[in-house]
């Protein structure tokens, strides 16, 4: 936890101190000095005073690293897929290994909505409303055939895929998918997050301002 709280404090300072390269590509050049709060006792490289205590990385990489390893799900359990979702949280599969065990039935602290089950038209706008209550940044996993496409319910009562209402990041096949499939989907989402240009996406005005200042 020390690493994370240190990161929160240091990131803005480090970002300002590091400066930006001339081609205006802020994020690629933005080197973040991340001081680990744990003491390092053995030499790991040419300068033992620096190495091991300071890490150079991109701002985006550090931010994404934090984000992808603490994906708190909003468990939108609507049908039998929710049983597998619960199994994924239990000890045999243990979604806590991926930092995604904090399932609370409030959207306010959530990062990823796992739509697990059949979305009926009666429920559709409620799902959308809960998604809208989640704070940015947020992602959506469509778990199982029903949430992805309506599944076997070619019916007057069932929404044919939650992607008609929400922007879905990862689709998981299966009816229902096994917990391993959910974990695989979660890892796919982690991969996706680690490639995101978070700073520019999240703070476009600030990025623009910085680019102007450099120009």
């Amino acid at each position, binding site marked *: 936890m020390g690493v994370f709280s240190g990161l929160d404090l240091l990131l803005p300072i480090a970002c300002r101190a590091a400066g930006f390269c001339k081609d205006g590509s802020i994020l690629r050049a933005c080197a973040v000095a991340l001081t680990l709060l744990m003491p390092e006792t053995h030499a790991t490289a040419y300068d033992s005073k620096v190495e091991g205590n300071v890490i150079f990385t991109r701002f985006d990489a550090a931010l994404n690293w934090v984000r992808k390893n603490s994906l708190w799900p909003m468990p939108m359990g609507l049908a039998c897929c929710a049983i597998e979702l619960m199994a994924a949280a239990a000890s045999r599969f243990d979604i806590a290994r991926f930092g995604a065990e904090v399932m609370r039935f409030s959207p306010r602290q959530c990062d990823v909505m796992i739509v697990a089950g059949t979305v009926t038209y009666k429920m559709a706008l409620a799902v959308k409303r809960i998604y809208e209550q989640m704070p940015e940044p947020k992602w959506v996993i469509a778990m199982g055939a029903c949430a992805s496409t309506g599944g076997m319910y070619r019916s*007057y009562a069932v929404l044919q895929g939650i992607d008609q209402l929400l922007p879905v990041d990862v689709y998981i096949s299966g009816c229902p998918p096994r917990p391993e499939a959910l974990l695989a989907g979660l890892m796919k989402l982690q991969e996706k997050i680690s490639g995101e240009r978070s700073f520019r996406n999240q703070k476009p005005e600030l990025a623009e301002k910085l680019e102007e200042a450099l120009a």
Partner: protein
Amino acid sequence: MALTEQELFHSLGKAFGPRIQLQTEFRGETTCTIAANDLRDITKFCRDELLFDYLIDITSIDNFGEDPRFEIIYHLYSLPHAVHLRLKLKISEDPGALDTVSDIWPTANWHEREIYDMMGLKFNGHPDLRRILMWDGYPFFPLRKDFPLEGLPSEMPDVAFTKVTPLEGGPFVTVPSTATSKDREPRARPPEL
């Protein structure tokens, strides 16, 4: 003292005579066809005198194209006698023809709401006849035979919406007729039917 089926249905026939229009037995279970305006008399008698204290289910059938169009079926069970009884009645679409039994068996309340929701049949004297599965304001009755399986578009802002479902070759669909199931249930219903 538990009575046998014969004794029960004998007393039912004695009490109502020709008002029991048809009585058939199939695999040990008896079905009586009655008229809609006799429903409350007969069901009250069944509960109070014959001790049919358990209303298992109420179902409705849409015999599209026939007159009267709908059929309601009451499944009764007597716990003291361990006997089943089925009551059938035919009913047309016009409102006011059908009475509630929710004061006789309180469980009928939600069963009748479901029939109202899915078939659009109204029950006189029902205390709270709202939709139970679809939302209030949904404009169709989806289990009627003239309602397409893929649904119809509808829109209620901030409540719900529906769209037409792509059937893509289609699941099994039953066309209402008296033909064999091979003819009635093609792989997909042609769009003109």
